[in-house]
Structures are given as structure tokens and as C-alpha cells.
């Protein structure tokens, strides 16, 4: 822990979009891992807020630190070899640094979590019913019969067909989509104030994904919960999140209310990320826009802007000075870029000239995270 004390915190104001106080607040969170190759700066100074009834989408590619961020918020990382600093506040109370016993009383009760892989997040040798009632008995002190009644209602609310039978089945007897719905029921059992969903639909088929996402959104609205939806797919959050936070190499590079982000994006990375996604209404055989190079090695992040080595607009300043998050034109919009795209750069303009295919040579990094 002491190692991180001397870090100067990046001042990041956390503007409120609606004026309602945040239920979850993350202030300048850093999570670094000690590895054989050095200290990996997986999350490096992230601040965010989640308000009741709102959905915050966290978007980034593999290795951008989005999952580590979610796990850090929940205190789910091992204590050995992990260095954390910054604060996590739940309804005004600091929960970062609490002992494990107190965290356990918060997880499941006040913050629910849904993970990507439902097969490994459910216990394979315990019946579904028991897995849902466990939280209710532990946190709410319910009796078995009462907890079972509530579990049945929960399974119905997540549209699991034939819920009575499912209570007595094991996870392997359910399809992937159904298991994920059970995982959602478990996360919602104690009516948490915040739901953290880490790639909840990445392992699912597209028709099932649409259904699970609609379900999550409905439940979140009905319960006026704050939801943090972590995903690599901009499409998943475009119509479901109120605010989008774009992460790159462990840092927030841009954030804005969803429509503002798509309309007024300022950070070249956000634009490149959006343009590299093939569109369902795209033309046949069009050349895809690519982002040349690779994300930086997080044991030794480059000085200045971490996207600079791959950015077509990068100049000398980008390679030496770290751009702070600065406010955009619209309230709630922030971006970290010295040479932003400027106003009137909608996401759907004519594509950029495609970056030439990078040739891999000895100078390239040998491994990526």
C-alpha cells in the first residue's frame, strides 16, 4: 500500500448528470499488480459515479482495466501482490479498505454482481434454489421456506420458464442464457442499490443476449438501481446506458452522457473504436478502419497520452505530457486529449483512411495483457 502513497492524484471532478446524489462513488482508484515483469498498472486513477436509476456503461478492449476496475470496487481481488489506492464510497460511506468480514456484509446485500461466465460463477454441485436462498438467509436472516418463496418469485421475474422445477436443478442442467438469468436473480435477491454487471452477455448468443439485456434494463428501472455495465461492445451500451465511460490502458479517456458521446466524441480513441466495429447496415466488402499498433505494456506505460503511439493525430506534446480529463461543451462530458477532434465530428462520417497493416518486428512488444 505504501508504494502508492506518493502518487499525485489526478484531479478528476465527478460531475452529476441529474443532480441526484450518487449511490456509488469511485475516487481516483488505482490497482496495480506485482508480477515477475514488474508492476502492472491495471487501473490507474479512475473516478466515476453511479446514481440511482441510472446505467453507467464502461467500454474498453481487453486489457483496458475494466474488469479489474469492477473487481476493485467490489474488493474481490487478492490482497497479496495487489496495491490499491483511492476511495470507493457506497452511499457516502467509504468501503475501500474495509476488512473482508465487513465487505462480505456489503457484497450481495448492497452491491450485486453478475459475471461473464455463469458456469463458473455458480457452484456446480449446489442446486439453483439453494444458491439463491443462501444470500437471503445470510444477509436478511430469512427462514428457509420464506427464502424459497422469494427465490421462486425472483426466477419468475427473470423469466426462467418452469421456475419450480429449476429450483431443484443443478447449473449444468440449464442453458447458458438461463444460467445467466439465474445469476441475475441471485444478484438481485437482496435488492442491492448497485448492480455491477461485468460482460453479462458476452458468452451468450445474440438472441439470448438481447433478451437478457432487456431484462436487466427493465429490472434496473423497476428497482431504481444504479447499474454499472462493463462491456467491450459499444452496441450493448449505446441504447441502454445513460452515461458511457471509455477506458484505455487503465485510464478513463472519455466520458459523457450516451447521446452526447456519440454526437460530440472528442477523443480519437473513442472514434477509432467505434469506426472499427462492423455495422449491420454497412456496405459489402468495405475496408474496415483499424487501429494500428497495440495497447501499451502496462508495466511500463508510455509517458504522456497512452494512446499517442497509435494515434494518427499525436504530436510531441502527446508523447511527453499526460492529458488531464477536461470538460467538454456539454455538461458531464470529459475527455483526456490535447488535440481533440473538435465540434462536428460525428461518429458516422466517411471513414478515415485505413491504417496500413503493421509489420511485426523485433521492436514490437512480445506479449500483451
Amino acid at each position, binding site marked *: 500500500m505504501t508504494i502508492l502513497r506518493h502518487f499525485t492524484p489526478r484531479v478528476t471532478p465527478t460531475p452529476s448528470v441529474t443532480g441526484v446524489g450518487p449511490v456509488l462513488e469511485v475516487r481516483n482508484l488505482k490497482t496495480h499488480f506485482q508480477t515477475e515483469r514488474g508492476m502492472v498498472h491495471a487501473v490507474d486513477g479512475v473516478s466515476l459515479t453511479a446514481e440511482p436509476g441510472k446505467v453507467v456503461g464502461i467500454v474498453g478492449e481487453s486489457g483496458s482495466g475494466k474488469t479489474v476496475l469492477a473487481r476493485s470496487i467490489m474488493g474481490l481481488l487478492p490482497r497479496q501482490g495487489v496495491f490499491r489506492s483511492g476511495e470507493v464510497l457506497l452511499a457516502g460511506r467509504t468501503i475501500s479498505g474495509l476488512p473482508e468480514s465487513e465487505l462480505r456484509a456489503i457484497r450481495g446485500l448492497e452491491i450485486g454482481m453478475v459475471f461473464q461466465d455463469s458456469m463458473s460463477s455458480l457452484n456446480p454441485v449446489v442446486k439453483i434454489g439453494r444458491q439463491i436462498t443462501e444470500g437471503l438467509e445470510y444477509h436478511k436472516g430469512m427462514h428457509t421456506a420464506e427464502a424459497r418463496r422469494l427465490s421462486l418469485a425472483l426466477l419468475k421475474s427473470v423469466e426462467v*420458464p418452469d421456475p419450480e422445477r429449476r429450483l431443484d436443478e443443478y447449473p449444468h442442467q440449464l*442453458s447458458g442464457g438461463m444460467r445467466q438469468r439465474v445469476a441475475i436473480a441471485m444478484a438481485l435477491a437482496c435488492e442491492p442499490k448497485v448492480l455491477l454487471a461485468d460482460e453479462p452477455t458476452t458468452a451468450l448468443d*445474440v438472441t439470448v443476449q438481447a433478451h437478457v439485456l432487456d431484462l436487466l434494463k427493465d429490472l434496473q428501472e423497476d428497482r431504481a438501481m444504479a447499474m454499472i455495465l462493463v462491456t467491450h461492445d459499444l452496441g450493448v451500451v*449505446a*441504447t441502454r446506458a445513460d452515461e458511457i465511460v471509455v477506458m484505455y490502458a487503465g485510464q478513463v479517456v472519455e466520458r459523457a452522457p450516451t*447521446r452526447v458521446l456519440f454526437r460530440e466524441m472528442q477523443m480519437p480513441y473513442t472514434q477509432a473504436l467505434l469506426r472499427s466495429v462492423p455495422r449491420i447496415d454497412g456496405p*459489402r466488402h468495405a475496408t474496415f478502419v*483499424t487501429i494500428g499498433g497495440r495497447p501499451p505494456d502496462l508495466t511500463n506505460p508510455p509517458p504522456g497520452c497512452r494512446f499517442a503511439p497509435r494515434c494518427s493525430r499525436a504530436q510531441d506534446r502527446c508523447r511527453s505530457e499526460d492529458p488531464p480529463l477536461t470538460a467538454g461543451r456539454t455538461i458531464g462530458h470529459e475527455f483526456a486529449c490535447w488535440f481533440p477532434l473538435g465540434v462536428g465530428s460525428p461518429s458516422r462520417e466517411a471513414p478515415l483512411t485505413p491504417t496500413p497493416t503493421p*509489420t511485426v518486428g523485433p521492436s514490437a512488444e512480445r506479449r500483451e495483457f
Partner: protein
Amino acid sequence: MPGPGTAHLRRDKEVLLRVENLVVEFSVGHQTLHAVSDVSFDVCRGETLGLVGESGCGKSTTGRAIVQMPRPTRGSVQFEGTDLCALRGEPLRHVRPRIQMIFQDPISSLNPRRKVADIVAEPLVAWGEKGSAREKKVREIFDAVGLDFDAVGTWRPHQFSGGQCQRISIARALVLDPHLLICDEPVSALDVSVQAQILNLLHEMKERYGLTLVFISHDLAVVRNVSDRVVVIYLGKVCEVGPPEALYDRPHHPYTRLLLSSVPVPDPEAPARERSTLASREFPSPLDPPSGCRFRTRCPGAQARCADEEPVMREVGDGHFAACHFPVYEPMTPAPSRTSVSLA
């Protein structure tokens, strides 16, 4: 039992690959798993055919059955005028260099203990290419896929990223100058920015080497962008076939419509699409597929006839076919969604 038919096969054109009434079944205990049930399609020279469907629909099995691994239970695979299902042993081996495959997981499809230069050279070794001619070909293909042979030839697969491993897989597949390349979910394991690089590379290779592609994917957006003709598969049966524009803009099969309305669009201003509650119904088991139309258990328009009689492929537009008793002719209509983004 009437199959889905072969009305969509093109008899008049120069066809490189014609798959007719392909059936692949596996024994599971005492039961039979119907992985592919009477699938037919054809691919013309220079074309990219997209095979799209959800997990478990039999699209990968179809791809593998083309190269006779596993051998289909019934049906024929006509490749350059030869029925591969009738070939065995040495004659079949001689066809293989002309059909190559690349797989989803680029890291596990490469032997971790071998140098990548040797991995790419292996097909040439198997076909007796020797010495400097072999090295010349390997260098050339490394260069074509954007890798520096002198710098990375002696590296092993774990030293590369997923995208680079996929480049090596592509190099290995192309080193024998195949005519047909079967790509089984080639970009599904990759990040979007890398995915775009590999898709561009595949397109570039197709132009450069005059390849014909069978592109298998669950990603409808990718399939639309790379394909000249798209085949939608559900539970081992072909539902709809057509050129991508017609199929995506005016889908006639209810399953295609469900698939398309489920795709997340990265645009908050996009009109809300049809929201189906039927998607929640369970995917039927291929051990015991539904009678008649296999999609009827999840179909919003299913009627009694759908359970009794299997629909046959019918032309619904120019070069556009669907296997449905009650095809939908209205364009995809945006329905009011329950939720709307509250931020202006």
C-alpha cells in the same frame, strides 16, 4: 419427409463448391444428434459465402463436413466437379491442398512447441517441397500476411498476440495456394480493432490469391460486410439464403428477423427495433428436433401446418429464398420499445 429443398442452388453458374442434402448425425448414447439435417448451398468461384447462425446450429459441423472431417452421414459435397464424399485415401488427400481451413482460437490451433516458420512450412513439407523453394514460399506468405520472417520466424506462438497468431494461421492455410478457404469464426476471439485488421487481411488475400471463401460466423454484422451471399442456419436446417442487402433489409424468415432485431447497434439514435419476447423460449435440443419446421417452437407466426409439414425452400425475391410456410413480406418495422433513453 420433404427436405428444405434445393431450389436455391444455382445450376447455370460456374460453381466451385456445391453441397447437396448434407446430413451429419452423431450417436450420443442411444440417441442420435441431428447436427446438420439436409443442408444445401453452393459457392461460385471468387465468391464469399457467409454461414450464419447461433451456437449449436451446425454451422461449424457443416464447414468441417466439407473437408470430410467428420465424413457426412449422407449427401454430397461437389468440389471442382468431384464428389468428395465418394473419395477415400490418397485421391482425397490430393484434394486437400485445394481446400484449407482457419479456426476460431488462433492460439490453440498452432502447436506451441514449434517455431512459427516451421508451422507455416509444414504443409509444404507434407507435399514434398524442399530446400530454397520451400523457404521462398514461406517468406513470401509471411510477407503477404504482414509478418517479418527474419524477425519473428524463430518465435513460438505464445510470443504473439491473438491477432498475430491468426495471421500465422492464415499464412499456413494459404501456403499451398488453396482454391477454397473455410474460415470458422476467424475473428470471434479477437478485439474489435484487431478483428478489423484480420478481416481486411482476409479480403486482401482473397483478391491477391483469387480465393473463394466460406465464412462461418455468429456475428451478423461481420457476415454482412464480408459476404456475397448469406445462408442462415437454424438447428441444422437452412432458413434463408440471399444476397446480404436483400436478406438484411427485407428478411422473410421469422428467424432471420429475430436474429437481426437482436443485434446491438452502436448508435443511440438508431430506431428501436422489434422487441421479441419469444427469444426467451428455449432453443430445442438437436437430439429431439421439433417436427415440421424446426423454428416453430420459437416462432411468433407458427400455425398448425408448421408442426405437420416441413417448409421447402421457395424463391421470395431475386436470388432470395426462404424455407417458411408463412414468410413475412413487410419490411422490418421499428416497434416502440418499453424504454427510451431519457437524456436528450
